[in-house]
């Protein structure tokens, strides 16, 4: 008979899920950079101290694992209560699928008024809010002043794409790797193609493609973006082996002072530290940042920006405590603290006085003056088409496709998803 018992207990063990505390808040993030994680841990502890009985549980996935697994995680009943987001089409697809919690009633009022309206509107879809932004950031060229001096390149002289190409040629002559990039992750390369497309075609071209007007993403500005990118690629500007390097590898190359530039978002300031060999990254006085150059004759404005309005979404079925915690995270006091530490630029009013960090100041000014802030295309175009943009950008960088094919591939994917 004991066999029967053991069998029963085996089956019981088999079907027993993990026990969950009633007021657990599962908080899924992808931050690997020391100072940011530290701040998040302080937020967690601060909230728990004020709200006994609530257990905030931080869950971490590296950025690549996060993107790969979030869609399957959301399908489970144990989905995270709060999770990182870049908003855009990926968020809209999640909302359509019913994986997000409508928190409009909570957001209305003082919470809503604390945000810059433009940033918050990225979290609105079909008249409802599913989360709130926490930072606004911008992509541009991080550069190494010492290497610029060595090669005799004046960063101020890089105003246009042609200037950049000339600078790259100078670095090549000087035997310095011009640019570090993480081709294996693909998204670092899509910044080139999409930023060029924005500079060449402006907001109008993007809106027209989304609306399916003309040739869509196969239209002239997008082909031209590929052509200009190929001009750079033919100079072989990237570090050896860049196609097998992830973003962290690339940030390590830049942080070790082995490449002059890296096209990345604001966060790279910390990535280049945490991935450097000595754990310190470039000295503050060697590190600098400049916006993406203009393209001669392009329709885009110098004040157009590409970047993220990153924040947190609330998963369907999340307890009210998760919303309360989100309110706590994005409270003006806590965001002022983040801004004061130079961790990011909060998309909120009245922060300029606390931002002392020169980099944050630079980003805050640029973003405040932005005439058109385009969210990362790989997020904005939705989970499926966005990946195609990353794919073709990488293929362009590897020289295995043509600008026409690249644009057409994106258009094909777009029309298949939206037919």
């Amino acid at each position: 008979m004991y066999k029967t018992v053991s069998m029963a207990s085996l089956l019981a063990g088999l079907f027993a899920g993990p026990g969950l505390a009633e007021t657990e808040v599962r908080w899924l993030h992808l931050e690997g950079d020391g100072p940011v994680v530290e701040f998040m841990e302080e937020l967690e502890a601060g909230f728990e101290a004020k709200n006994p009985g609530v257990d905030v549980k931080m869950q971490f996935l590296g950025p690549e694992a996060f993107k790969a697994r979030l869609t399957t995680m959301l399908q489970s009943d144990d989905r995270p209560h709060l999770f990182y987001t870049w908003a855009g089409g990926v968020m809209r697809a999640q909302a359509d699928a019913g994986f997000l919690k409508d928190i409009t009633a909570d957001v209305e009022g003082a919470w809503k008024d604390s945000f810059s309206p433009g940033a918050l509107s990225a979290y609105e879809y079909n008249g409802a809010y599913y989360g709130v932004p926490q930072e606004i950031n911008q992509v541009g060229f991080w550069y190494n002043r010492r290497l610029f001096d060595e090669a005799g390149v004046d960063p101020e002289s890089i105003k246009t794409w042609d200037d950049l190409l000339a600078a790259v040629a100078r670095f090549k002559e000087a035997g310095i790797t011009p640019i570090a990039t993480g081709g294996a992750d693909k998204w670092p390369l899509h910044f080139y193609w999409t930023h060029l497309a924005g500079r060449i075609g402006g907001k109008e071209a993007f809106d027209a493609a989304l609306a399916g007007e003309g040739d869509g993403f196969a239209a002239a500005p997008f082909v031209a973006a590929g052509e200009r990118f190929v001009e750079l690629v033919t100079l072989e500007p990237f570090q050896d082996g860049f196609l097998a390097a992830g973003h962290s590898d690339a940030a390590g190359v830049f942080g070790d002072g082995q490449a002059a530039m890296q096209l990345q978002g604001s966060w790279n300031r910390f990535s280049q530290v945490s991935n450097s060999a000595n754990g310190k990254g470039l000295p503050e006085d060697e590190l600098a940042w400049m916006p993406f150059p203009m393209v001669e004759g392009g329709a885009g404005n110098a004040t157009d920006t590409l970047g993220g309005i990153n924040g947190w979404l609330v998963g369907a079925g999340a307890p009210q405590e998760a919303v309360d915690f989100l309110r706590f995270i994005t409270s003006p006091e806590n965001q002022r603290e983040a801004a004061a530490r130079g961790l990011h630029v909060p998309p909120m009013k009245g922060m300029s006085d606390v931002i002392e960090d020169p980099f944050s100041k630079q980003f805050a000014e640029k973003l405040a003056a932005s005439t058109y802030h385009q969210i990362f295309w790989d997020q904005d175009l939705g989970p499926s088409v966005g990946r195609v943009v990353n794919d073709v950008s990488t293929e362009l960088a590897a020289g295995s496709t043509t600008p026409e094919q690249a644009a057409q591939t994106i258009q094909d994917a777009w029309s298949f998803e939206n037919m």
Partner: protein
Amino acid sequence: MGIGSGRAHRLYHDLALVAVGIFVATPLLVTFLGGFKDQGELRANPFGLPSTLNLSNFAQILSQPDIWVYVGNSLVVAGMTVALTLIIGAMAAFAFAQIRFFGSRMLLNYVLLGMMFPFATAILPLFVRLRDFGLLNSYAGLVLPQVAFGLGFSILLMRSFFKQLPSELWEAAQIDGCSYAGFFWKVTLPLSTPILATVGVFVLVQSWNNFLLPLVVLNDESLYTWPIGIMQFQGEYNTEWSLILAFVTLTLIPAVIFFAFAQKYIVEGLTGGAVKG
């Protein structure tokens, strides 16, 4: 007898063994030694012995609870998979080997179909199904599909073993009025420990190393099995190779120890069941 040519062969053989031995051992040795080095030494001296016996990488990993959680989960999942596969598989194999009934051959072929295709062909619908059953993020969500996919192979091996048992046993038992189930329980199973051990070892290794299924099924870090855990670790430490190599070494040690003990069953399984299957 060509003694001379025999010696020449001996030389070639020794050379071949040494060459392949170097090919096989180098990555393993470099991994093992790398865990004791720091980043700089790893680059400057990848092959050599570490200059100092630096245990800090190992200490750092072992002091985190994560690795213990991962290994514990893997043990539970593998243990349940082995137990269920053995029970369910042996019962089915017995029915196929010992009981004559209409459609037996057809049903056997149906189950053996399962050996022919990989997890991956069905991973998406499997995911949808596990989701609909509410089995995502649970041990059962790993165990049941693993058992199901392992059944074909297990039944094949066990059935051919059961068939080789002397038929006089069953005739004698019948005269004693023994039922099929009684015979299975009292005679077949006790005589079949070698094949049960072999199947158990193979199922254990499969489950222990499974990557794709837990990748899709598990969300909660407290349920991660170690292959998922190791990828998570790598995502966190990226290019800190000395730390990653130390982690890999730690996860390899149980496999190597286990192999030393289970080698007999692996070899027996290959000699006995599989080859005659």
